């Protein structure tokens, strides 16, 4: 690992770090939102399935944070829990709340929203992971191969939900359509690499933004055609999470999870 590090220029190292933070923070927030569903999913089988996906995704985030630790950026757990919102590089889509109400209180989470977000997100992750299998950064390439195998089941799961809800009752369909609108509105930065776009692409760390976004659209196409829906049009980002621009929903999430983490770390003493 340290050999790889030595061979990299400052510029390349910066690009690697930025991409790693984007991947790590995305999966971390995505699985945090997933974990809030624990015990609240539509039925027990789904509870088992989504907590399994959440656990896998948390494992993926941990791997990326570990690579950052190897690059000398600090302890992986601290990187995950203690960085403030302005330093976060996750896409806005992953930080959004599941719906109104606090987890411990009377949550009124929106399952349709979760299905759409999870399907679109995991399919986008699929496109990135496929490309990362060829990354010029070896440690990332190796992780991508492993993540890919687990992701296979995640995509399958969310695609099934997506299809089923959109081909059931009118009510379900209406809810799904408005969920799609909400999710797509936040997708502006999902395929963005932010300010580091140029070096990230130049060093062949991953395919270009455009290429990943196209791969994502092509992956959705058969499903959308079968359901007779138009493919989504990704808007320009209003906030770009890759550059540290976020909603208040992120800060609230970080407050909650860092508080739990601090208590946890304290009891370990």
């Amino acid at each position: 690992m340290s050999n790889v590090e030595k061979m990299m220029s400052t510029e390349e190292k910066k690009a690697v770090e930025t991409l790693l933070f984007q991947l790590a923070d995305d999966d971390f927030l995505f699985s945090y939102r997933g974990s809030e569903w624990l015990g609240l999913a539509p039925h027990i089988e789904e509870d088992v399935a989504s907590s399994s996906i959440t656990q896998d995704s948390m494992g993926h985030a941990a791997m990326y944070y570990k690579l950052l630790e190897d690059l000398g950026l600090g302890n992986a757990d601290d990187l995950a829990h203690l960085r403030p919102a302005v330093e976060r590089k996750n896409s806005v889509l992953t930080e959004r709340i599941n719906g109104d109400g606090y987890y411990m209180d009377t949550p009124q989470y929106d399952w349709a929203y979760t299905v759409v977000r999870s399907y679109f997100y995991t399919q986008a992750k699929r496109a990135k992971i496929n490309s990362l299998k060829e990354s010029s950064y070896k440690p990332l390439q190796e992780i991508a191969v492993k993540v890919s195998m687990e992701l296979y089941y995640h995509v399958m799961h969310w695609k099934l939900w997506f299809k089923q809800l959109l081909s059931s009752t009118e009510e379900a369909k209406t809810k799904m359509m408005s969920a799609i609108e909400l999710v797509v509105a936040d997708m502006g930065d999902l395929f963005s690499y932010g300010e580091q776009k140029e070096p990230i692409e130049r060093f062949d760390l991953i395919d270009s933004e455009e290429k990943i976004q196209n791969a994502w659209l092509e992956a959705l196409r058969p499903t959308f055609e079968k359901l007779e829906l138009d493919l989504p049009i990704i808007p320009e980002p209003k906030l770009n999470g890759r550059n540290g621009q976020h909603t208040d929903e992120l800060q609230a999430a970080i407050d909650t999870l860092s508080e739990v983490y601090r208590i946890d770390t304290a009891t370990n003493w």
Partner: protein
Amino acid sequence: MVALIKNSQNLEVWKVLESVKDPEIDTVSIVDLGMVEKVEVEAEQIKVTLLPTFLGCPALEIIRTNTKNAVMGLSFAKNVEVEFIFSPPWTSDRVTENGKKGLKEFGIAAPPRHLEEDGSWHVDCPYCNSTYVTMENIFGPTACRSILYCKSCKTPFEAMKPVSTIM
């Protein structure tokens, strides 16, 4: 002579690793599951390299501790290091014949080797060997297992998910 001793010590480590069971399935060891990638013995320094089945698996730390403790029990062990690596990735075809037997004993169908074109797969019921089974939930109680139902003996059972590099 030194080489011979090293070699026999290496075998002893492998042997003791067979006593390290999956924390949830006590009929299979980490060797049976194909999780042990490498054993290195250098003087009193022993290093065991393991492959995690799934990245987020909560049992990994338990496995690490149990592995360490088991190897420390060897008379020549002074320093034991257990490392998890991701490359090569663990795949379900690493499960040995012995592992498959152990899984079946526990009521878990071994991971199938063959995947259909649409990604679906088939296993037989570990209890009555019937092929008349349905998938209940692809995500079982742990990341690496799925829940199925046998329509012949009317028993729910689990199967270890196939995991391969073509996915």
